């Protein structure tokens, strides 16, 4: 069960939310506003929407990772009964470009194929069967070119370049302190190379979008997405329309996790082009296999470490070199790299650091945003190295971390940023350890007689909330609040709900600030024609940025509402308080008038009951060359401790329990927060042990739930949660984000627990049974079997067998 405590710190910034005497819904467990409709099956996702005359879209894509496209034979596709349009690059009305940051990515291939799944042609037909059949019949004339499938090899001279300028997209650095001097005084040095696999989002709802054209003048896109404004920009560019002529409405979205951050612009641009070509509404729902192959993934990375500490366990220096596999196009890879770069050291005090994060093109899967956004990978490496140092020093891994974490006295990060307080790393460590029973576990002798071994491991993360300095130009948020004559409230925001609870958070924050019941607040789907560009719903910024914009709108609304209430109450406007659905007089709580009555009075007097709100982050200082400065506005700490049981002979891992301590600032909605933590842990656990992207020359060999195995209900560990609340964060009522901190440390904690259980280091993720057995090497009781056996030449990589 979660426990709540409010920690006071010196120099507490004032709570930016309006104060009320009543507790209000903040932090409660009231019903999420969208839950009833979802549970009844009445919520309409894109695939549940149909319009008369609507056509279905399909994509013809490349089966090979690298080729010159010499031509396309379309006759057979066009001949399929029901086909109304087959579109290629030449037919795109505007610019054939969907790169979200850099313009290196065409919507449709013109001359060069760079990945399996690269789009060659689009089809619109009267039935989805006809559309996908026609797409299958598109015949591309491909001259295969050499391909590169290893990001480290991609950066060596002579590697086939995917784009002009070579395969190194960019290098980010952090350079601070005198590494050579610190290396000389270190007593223990750990060197390691970590091979960290990527991850598929596996949202249950595949990518889906619907385009409704109005001749070729303007268009409505209804799409499953996290960032309607990204979609708006991409569609406007591809159609050659002004932004105002493109309306994007976010449909109820069945999971995102970053996979619906930038990628939806691509299917949306596809249906937009087809809608303009045919004059009809066009809907696209990606088949799961194509979604898995072609949409974005968590980056595969290789991380090299050389870290050192003195004999007391004080870290002296940390050198990190990371190579990220971006795939064929840049997408968001440079932004992911920025976060990975800034997060490479973790929440530790290290006098000297040298970090280099390289981003490489390859012909592999398309790396992009995924919950954690680069931080999970570097955290996995950092926490593994901390445990290795602890073992070398014969020190408790918890104690090693205690000795090195940032705190209120020593709060300068590896990038030289002075953390805003309170810095709760020790608090989170201690709380998680208490929940997990860390000391008791280590004290009792493990009953390690049979093959089952038990272990416990720690993952700790310092998470930079909201957007990196590099994304400042996006970091604003817009809200609209409309007080209805009957006292109910319409709220519009630019940040999206994808299951994480933003709707509930926005509803709760608005209700808290207006002093009304959440049930009278209705938050409607984001629509680019109702609010200003609010940036992407990413980086755990949704509740934070929506919340502050809503509070701003309500502040403005109250400049018109309070005087009316004051008249009804017979007091001054600045004495009006709102709580429990009543306007009351401060100091005389018996003098009240229902908020609904104030609303109706405003309507009767034709007083403006609509207000817009705006929030943007303050500029920060940061030097991209050295990586020094304030990459993030504020930070959240999370500590998770996993307890595992490992069958050391079969390599099977069972995560029994995860104890999580999260520094959340302020709980907005308790169920939503717990749900995020529980969900993040399970998703992180899947990445850690059972989810593997199996690539065969750029082609995903397991593009289905059958062989890309995410955790089921039977795999869920027991999750214990404790939250640490504090004041000082600048979020609404002091809230920080929890969407990503809930996942980032999990895989690290699991890896460390497994290594604790087995007494071996495993530097490869995921920890699948074959990986675990391989790591045991000669220590495995049956290792002799393989070494005895001569390698039979029949044992080569063979064809995929999917039957079961």
């Amino acid at each position, binding site marked *: 069960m979660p426990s709540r405590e409010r920690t006071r710190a010196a120099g507490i910034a004032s709570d930016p939310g309006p104060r009320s005497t009543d507790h209000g819904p903040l932090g409660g467990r009231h019903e999420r506003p969208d839950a009833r409709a979802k549970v009844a099956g009445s919520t309409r996702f894109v695939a549940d929407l149909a319009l008369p005359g609507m056509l279905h879209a399909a994509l013809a894509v490349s089966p090979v990772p690298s080729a010159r496209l010499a031509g396309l034979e379309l006759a057979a596709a066009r001949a399929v009964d029901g086909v109304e349009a087959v579109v290629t690059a030449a037919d795109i009305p505007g610019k054939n470009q969907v790169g979200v940051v850099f313009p290196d990515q065409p919507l449709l291939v013109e001359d060069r194929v760079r990945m399996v799944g690269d789009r060659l042609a689009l089809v619109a037909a009267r039935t989805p069967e006809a559309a996908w059949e026609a797409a299958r019949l598109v015949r591309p004339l491909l001259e295969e070119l050499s391909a590169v499938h290893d990001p480290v090899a991609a950066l060596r001279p002579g590697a086939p370049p995917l784009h002009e300028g070579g395969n190194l997209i960019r290098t980010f650095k952090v350079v601070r302190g005198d590494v050579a001097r610190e290396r000389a005084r270190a007593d223990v040095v750990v060197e390691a190379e970590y091979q960290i696999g990527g991850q598929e989002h596996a949202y249950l709802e595949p990518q889906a979008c619907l385009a409704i054209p109005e001749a070729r003048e303007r268009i409505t896109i209804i799409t499953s997405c996290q960032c309607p404004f990204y979609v708006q920009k991409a569609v406007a560019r591809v159609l050659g329309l002004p932004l105002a002529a493109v309306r994007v409405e976010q449909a109820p979205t069945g999971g995102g996790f970053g996979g619906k951050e930038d990628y939806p612009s691509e299917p949306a641009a596809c249906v937009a082009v087809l809608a303009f070509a045919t004059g009809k509404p066009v809907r696209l729902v990606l088949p799961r296999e194509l979604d898995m192959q072609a949409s974005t993934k968590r980056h595969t990375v290789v991380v090299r470490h050389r870290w050192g500490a003195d004999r007391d366990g004080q870290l002296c220096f940390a050198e990190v070199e990371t190579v990220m596999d971006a795939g064929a196009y840049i997408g968001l890879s440079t932004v992911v790299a920025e976060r990975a770069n800034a997060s490479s050291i973790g929440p530790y005090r290290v006098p000297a650091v040298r970090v280099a994060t390289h981003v490489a093109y390859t012909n592999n899967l398309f790396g992009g945003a995924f919950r954690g956004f680069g931080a999970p990978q570097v955290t996995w490496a950092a926490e593994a190295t901390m445990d290795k140092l602890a073992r070398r020093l014969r020190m408790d891994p918890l104690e090693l971390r205690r000795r090195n974490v940032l705190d209120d006295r020593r709060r300068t990060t590896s990038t030289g940023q002075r953390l805003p307080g309170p810095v709760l790393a020790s608090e989170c460590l201690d709380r998680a350890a208490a929940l997990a029973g860390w000391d008791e576990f280590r004290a009792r002798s493990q009953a390690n007689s049979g093959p089952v071994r038990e272990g416990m491991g720690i993952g700790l993360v310092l998470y930079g909330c909201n957007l990196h300095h590099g994304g400042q130009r996006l970091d604003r948020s817009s809200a609209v609040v409309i007080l209805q004559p009957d006292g109910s409230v319409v709220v519009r925001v630019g940040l999206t709900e994808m299951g994480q609870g933003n709707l509930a958070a926005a509803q709760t924050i608005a209700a808290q600030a207006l002093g009304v019941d959440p049930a009278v607040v209705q938050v409607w789907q984001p629509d680019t024609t109702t609010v200003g560009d609010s940036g992407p719903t990413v980086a755990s910024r949704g509740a934070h940025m929506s919340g502050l914009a809503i509070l701003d709108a309500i502040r403005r609304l109250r400049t018109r509402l309070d005087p009316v209430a004051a008249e009804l109450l017979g007091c001054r406007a600045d004495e009006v308080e709102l709580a429990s659905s009543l306007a009351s007089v401060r100091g005389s709580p018996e003098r009240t008038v229902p908020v609904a009555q104030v609303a109706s009075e405003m309507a009767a007097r034709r007083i403006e009951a609509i207000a817009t709100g705006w929030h943007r982050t303050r500029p920060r200082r940061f030097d991209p060359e050295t990586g020094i400065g304030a990459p993030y506005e504020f930070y959240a700490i999370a500590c998770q401790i996993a307890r595992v049981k490992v069958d050391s002979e079969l390599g099977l891992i069972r995560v029994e329990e995860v104890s999580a301590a999260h520094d959340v600032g302020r709980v907005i909605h308790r169920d939503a927060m717990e749900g995020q933590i529980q969900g993040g842990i399970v998703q992180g656990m899947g990445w850690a042990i059972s989810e593997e992207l199996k690539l065969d020359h750029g082609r995903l060999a397991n593009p289905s739930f059958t062989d890309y195995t995410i955790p089921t209900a*039977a795999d869920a560990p027991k999750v214990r949660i404790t939250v640490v609340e504090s004041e000082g964060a600048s979020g609404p009522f002091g809230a920080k984000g929890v969407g990503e901190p809930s996942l980032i440390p999990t895989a690290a904690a699991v890896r460390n627990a497994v290594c604790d259980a087995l007494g071996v280091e495993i530097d490869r993720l995921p920890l699948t049974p074959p990986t675990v057995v391989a790591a045991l090497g000669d220590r495995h009781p*049956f290792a002799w*079997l393989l070494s005895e056996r001569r390698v039979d030449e029949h044992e080569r990589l063979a064809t995929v067998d999917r039957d079961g």
Partner: protein
Amino acid sequence: MDVPVREVVRPGSLAEALLALTERPDALVIAGGTDLLVQLRDGRKRAATLVDLDRLDLAGVRETNGGIEIGAATPMDRIAADPRIRRLHPALAEAAAQIGAWPIQCRATLGGNLANASPAADTAPALLVADASLTLVSHGGTRKVPVEEFFRAPGRSALAPAELILSVLLPTPSEERGLRAFESFVKVGSRREQIISMVSLAGRALVAGDGTFSEVRLAFGSVAPTPVRARRTEHLITGRRPDAELRREATRVLQDDISPIDDVRAPAGYRRIACAVLLARFLEEAAHG
């Protein structure tokens, strides 16, 4: 999206079904559809006609003179729950309970699992150690085929064109005085439920009071082109008491009984090791009951 078939025939009798199959050489039989519909969807199998066995009464678990007869259309959840199967053939009950997940078990049929002829078919190892046989029926009449001869190659069974599986017979296990029967099924996958096996083992042993294995049957899945009985290994152990040295030797001999490959689920080396582990554990558990 619709699967690309042009006709679905739903015969009301066996004769109708066989006639339909004979008249349409490009027809495929569908029962639970849990394998076939996936294959039709992704183009691995094609058929103009599907012959749906739903209206034929081919499901049921019956006790006969020869043993337990399971109708080919019996779904896995019924097999897993049947008290007679649980008592006499616990490996089969356990295998049925581990196929897919509950909604798949409510549809997937025993006949379908066999006809699909995957080397990873979960029921096959259990049927192999039970010395089960299939009754097949065609226009020419019925014939019995031992399960060991039924699997020919990955995806290919002994079914002739226009031939159906009617039932599977599991002979009553022999009981001998002084001998204790032990049977188990274990499946190893990358997660606990709803998983295609990396390796699986069904084992059955008759153990004497002094620990001698008077009879032992071992069948493995996912480590050869078909599910296989580990005959050399069985031969090594039969009549002997598996101490640590014999267990070790058995895992070595086992390597010649299996021929695993690298595939999307696991590398061959892991499969060899996992089989050895499962075998060693079976021998120990069987010895101690």
